[in-house]
């Protein structure tokens, strides 16, 4: 059975993530260079709105967008497969997301 309805949706999510993430990274880098501040403190997720210089937080925002985009792509795939009633593919994608979440939680502990 032919099926490619999920491709357009996933491609749109991935390309959107690249565009937004790329713009944030470029602006952050440009501000740092113009301001002559090339310091790079280690930042955590919680520093996005509070800690560190503006350029570093913009760069962090870009990194977060790029890092979240593959996961958003998989979520888009799950939606597409559910719409096609391809339960096996949707279940496989859901289990993958579940295992990755468990891995992230274990990694943080």
């Amino acid at each position, binding site marked *: 059975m032919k099926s490619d309805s999920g491709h357009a949706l996933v491609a749109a999510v991935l390309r959107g993530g690249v565009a937004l993430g790329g713009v944030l990274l470029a602006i952050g880098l440009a501000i740092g260079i113009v301001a002559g501040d090339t310091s790079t403190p280690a930042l955590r997720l919680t520093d996005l709105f509070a800690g560190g210089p503006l350029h570093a937080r913009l760069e962090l925002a870009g990194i977060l967008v790029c890092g979240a985009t593959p996961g958003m792509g*998989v979520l888009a795939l799950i939606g597409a497969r559910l719409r096609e009633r391809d339960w096996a593919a949707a279940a496989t994608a859901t289990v993958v997301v579940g295992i990755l979440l468990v891995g992230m939680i274990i990694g943080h502990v």
Partner: protein
Amino acid sequence: MTVGLLALVGLVLLGLVSGSLGALVGIGGGVVIVPALTILFGFDIKTAIAASLVAVAVTSITASGRYVRLGLVNTRLALTLELATALGGLAGGFIGTLVPARVLSVVFGVLLVVTGILSLRGHGEHGEHVGAAGVERAGWETRRPLGGAFWDERTASMVSYTAKRLPIGEGVSFVAGLASGLLGVGGGVLKVPAMNLGMDVPVKVAAATSSFMIGVTATAGLTVYLGRGFLHPGVAAPLALGVLAGALVGTRFAGAASPRALRTTLGVILVLVAVVMVIRGAG
């Protein structure tokens, strides 16, 4: 930590090279970026791995954004294999304290030498040309068996394929996940030859599908490094921008490249990476 302007330019250039090659052959480049950041730039290993994971994610989304639209990525195959990779990554986290990373680095290196030689010698041009007339120039997937078809720019025809010997792909993907959990690499260097040589998937589909997979794997690792405070945006950002530009260039060339050229490029990269891994393990 401060990154000087010269180092900043160097990071962009490293990203450009890594992104273009990674997008072309379906690897994230972590096994090249991490040694380069530690040896050439002097960053500590955890900062290097965190920046490398960002680079892998950017290579993945930039390349697979185009490949998915062209129908080159087999998303069902990707997630079926990613299941094994994710399990391998979890297992790697658990057994990391039992197996010394040096030993695994050498084993991984030897495995890469073997797959590199197989890629250089192999006959990996799989798939059947099914003609050009009256077909849409976008690929599709089949549910069972896992397979599909894609538009081959080089021959101007649709190529259909079926993924065979799924257990081989699952097994190698598990090992790739294990390596990812233990060594901080994406595992694309193993997945592409596994799909192409082990499962008879055309090399262009194998590279594109691997591009999609490595982003998912890298994201999981990145959250861990971010949570533990090892991410320096000033190191990762210029690298990521270089990777983004490089991956855009790499995907333009991939469509028109011959399968043989892609396999040869992959084989050479595999052997070079293997040497780095063995040296790291022995050192």
